[in-house]
């Protein structure tokens, strides 16, 4: 409250303060060695102020009374300097304050209560299981855990305390042959907003031999012939395609030009030509934004400006329906919301990676909802005459407006006559986003839905890291351009 009072008396019309304590722990191993054991804690606060329509932000690790007041005044002084370039003042969408709220991730086992020797032993056992496979030469494995305790107070009267957990176990197995090496990452296990129970459920020791065998099999896999193929994409792969080609282009700050210098703009712009008009994909395509799915990386009770996030449809029956927004951004779409008989409210997408960084618009969970028919992964393969099935995310690159993308993967299967007939390698597909999503003709049902996730999604300057989940089902895409990435040195 000291910071909010200091900011107000220095001239701020709005102010918020976030105080956070982040603890993370990571264990890195290779073969039968623990390479590094790291435990980090960072504690500090950030004050954001709005002064006559211009933002200011300052932060410090020193929570003494004098420093808190100094930082609040520094933020106001900075806002006045920033105001010298102002063309359009910032206005904020209304919010319903939460005077005394608390929220906690659904973590059953706090990872910091589990002894490190137990964690290290699990990784080394998984490594041994992988190296038991003939031809598997190297294995790296790691666990990463986060616990963030975050308090937000705003001059609107919000005061909320939240405890957020994230967990990511992973491994990479490398097989080496003369003049060649191939890797298999464990990315059918995805990061989650859960506790240590996620590591237990990942069954690393049980799964490691399969990942190792697949790395070895890739050495003798058939190089793909370039051409157009039907692609069947597993949720462990498709989440990243959704992330890059749907979630990023529907961020409103990108569409309006605010991220042009780094992350880029968007082909889903300008809003007045896109909302309710752009046919993103087939009619059965529905894409939801939310911060509520249990165990998802983006789940919170309130965002970093005190908005309780809601579920909203970004794509509704194949047509573009809404952008991701913050309190500053929602008023830019007032015309659209009033046409929909909706209030102009933020969707709750404000986020900062730490106390030292200013909050801004970040994506929530963005998920492809299941189809009405309960198709499975096997059903999609059985229905495909000539195609490639891809499991696990791999290399990825996309342009600054999210039109042209190239994706690799972990494991590639050749599909002929409705059956998997062998493994392929050096596969990447190139797409143009609108054509790609409109070529989707078959998706899985509710039983095939899973959450994938980006643990370190970068955006903003200075670049901030965000963690989001992307729920999805397997899906088939027709006639996609596939290239062979193998080259000789």
């Amino acid at each position, binding site marked *: 409250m000291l910071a909010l009072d200091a900011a107000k008396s220095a001239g701020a019309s709005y102010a918020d303060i976030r105080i956070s304590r982040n603890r993370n722990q990571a264990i890195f191993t290779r073969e039968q060695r623990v390479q590094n054991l790291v435990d980090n804690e960072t*504690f500090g606060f950030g004050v954001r102020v709005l002064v006559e329509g211009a933002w200011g932000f300052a932060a*410090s690790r020193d929570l003494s009374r004098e420093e808190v007041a100094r930082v609040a005044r520094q933020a106001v002084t900075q806002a006045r*300097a920033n105001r010298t*370039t102002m*063309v359009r003042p910032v206005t904020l969408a209304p919010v319903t304050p939460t005077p005394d709220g608390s929220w906690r991730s659904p973590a059953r086992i706090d990872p910091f209560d589990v002894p490190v020797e137990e964690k290290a032993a699990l990784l080394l056992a998984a490594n041994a299981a992988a190296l038991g496979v003939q031809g598997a030469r190297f294995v790296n494995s790691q666990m990463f855990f986060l616990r963030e305790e975050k308090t937000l107070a705003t001059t609107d009267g919000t005061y909320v305390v939240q405890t957020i957990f994230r967990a990511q176990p992973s491994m990479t197995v490398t097989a*080496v042959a003369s003049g060649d090496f191939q890797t298999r990452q464990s990315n059918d296990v995805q990061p989650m907003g859960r506790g240590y129970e996620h590591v237990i459920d990942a069954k690393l020791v049980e799964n490691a031999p399969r990942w190792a065998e697949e790395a070895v099999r890739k050495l003798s896999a058939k190089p793909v012939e370039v051409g157009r193929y039907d692609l069947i994409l597993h949720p462990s792969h498709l989440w990243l395609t959704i992330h890059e080609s749907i979630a990023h282009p529907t961020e409103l700050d990108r569409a309006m030009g605010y991220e042009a210098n780094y992350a880029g703009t968007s*082909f889903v712009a300008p809003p007045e030509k896109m909302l309710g008009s752009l046919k993103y994909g087939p009619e059965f395509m529905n894409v939801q934004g939310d911060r509520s799915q249990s165990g998802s990386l983006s789940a919170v009770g309130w965002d970093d400006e005190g908005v309780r996030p809601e579920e909203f449809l970004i794509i509704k029956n194949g047509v573009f329906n809404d952008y991701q927004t913050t309190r500053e951004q929602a008023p830019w779409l007032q015309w659209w919301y009033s046409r929909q008989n909706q209030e102009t409210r933020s969707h709750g997408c404000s986020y900062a990676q730490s106390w030292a960084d200013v909050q801004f618009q970040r994506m929530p969970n963005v998920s492809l909802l299941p189809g009405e028919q309960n198709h499975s992964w096997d059903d999609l393969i059985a229905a495909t005459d000539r195609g490639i099935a891809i499991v696990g995310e791999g290399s990825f690159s996309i342009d600054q407006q999210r039109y042209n993308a190239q994706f690799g993967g972990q494991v590639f299967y050749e599909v002929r006559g409705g059956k998997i007939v062998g493994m392929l390698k050096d596969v990447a597909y190139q797409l143009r986003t609108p054509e790609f999503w409109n070529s989707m003709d078959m998706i899985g049902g509710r039983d095939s839905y899973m959450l994938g996730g980006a643990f370190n999604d970068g955006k903003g*300057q200075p670049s901030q890291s965000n963690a989001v989940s992307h729920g999805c089902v397997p899906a088939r895409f027709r006639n996609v351009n596939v290239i062979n990435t193998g080259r000789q040195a």
Partner: protein
Amino acid sequence: MSAPRSLLEPARYLSRAEAEALAKRVLALATADATRVTLQGGSRGNTRFALNQISTAGDDFNTTVTVRSLFGKRSANVTTNKLDDAGLRYAVETSERLAKLAPEDPEEMGELDPQQYAESRSWSDATASLDPAARADAVRAITQATSAAGLHGTGYLETNAGSFAVANSKGLFAYARGTGAALTTTVRTPDGNGSGWAGAAHNDWSRLRPAELGARAIEKARRSANPVAIEPGRYTVVLEPTAVGNLVQNMGFALNARNADEGRSFFSKQGGGNKIGMKIVDERVTIVSDPLDPEAPANTFNNEGLPTARTVWIENGVVRNLAYDRFWAQKMGKQPLPFVASLSMSGGTATIEELIASTQRGILVTRFWYIRQVDPRVLLVTGLTRDGTFLIENGKITNAVKNLRFNESPIFMLNNVEAMGRPVRVSASESGSPGVAVVVPPLKVRDFNFTSLSDAV
């Protein structure tokens, strides 16, 4: 931290004396067989702008202490930013508790004895004293011009000033302070059909020219409007220095002897061993890291306290060195050779205009974007051109062209060099933060592999 403080004082960071005193406080609490303390931090200031006005800005201050405790061959690291006695004691006790629980590491090399270091050359008072009002002035030098031109100016200015110190229980103490500054701007036409970029980075803010960068980005935005489509394929390209930096810095990550010796790197030799002594690129190419080069300075020690020195990675096209950590060096009978956080590449004397004039048909590339590894066996990467891509015909720029995706390796590129220009310091980091120092020339390269067109502007 240094007192007294004014509201907008020069950046705060740990002085040598403060770092030494803090390290001693931590080491006095330690009971492990050996302990290392790493201190890092300082002040960061940033200002963003979009649509010709400042959007957000930030000033933050932090210092972290990392304690590494070692019992026999068991170790752990704990980092905190709570520097009071209780905070430091908690960090030391947690580190020692975790270290005792960790398995023995057969590759543990122990802590280093005291070392000698050269004085770091990374500091600039001009950078350390840049305050939010001065940052806003620099931004206005660009946005006033873009407004007057009827264009949309966006961009980012970041400065940092801090220090880095390593101390251990054997008496080693290393200290360096450094600053960094980067200013980048992307100027777009209001209809979204043209986009131009310019940017620069240096340790010394006074070396950056905001108005010149703005003028360059405005010129590119205008010339890039309404691009035409060309067929993807292999083209001669004239790469501006930033584009060369975007690609060449990717090689730096692969200069690792162990991965090469283990057979899982481009630098692995067929049949075993690594490619040291083998010619891999054009003989005009030499790549070095020199922590004392004033144009590309870097820390004079690594995070173990091992001194860094001028290192030639590639000389006249031949691999001269790969980085060896202390364990791998001992195992292979070599001297340890740490990475150095900077990269300088040789060049020639040509100007970009001369490289263009000598090109019958080719493409001029301002910068590359979203570069990601596709195949580590040949360092193949993919990515796209961005913010200023032009067709060269008969020695002249004739048209803006649509952006293109490439699948190419910096190794292949440096084997196809036609001509080189004068090396300059570039802002090569994707995020626009100061990053490591990269000094590279503009290049004219044949047979650059573009694989598809992009509609992105």
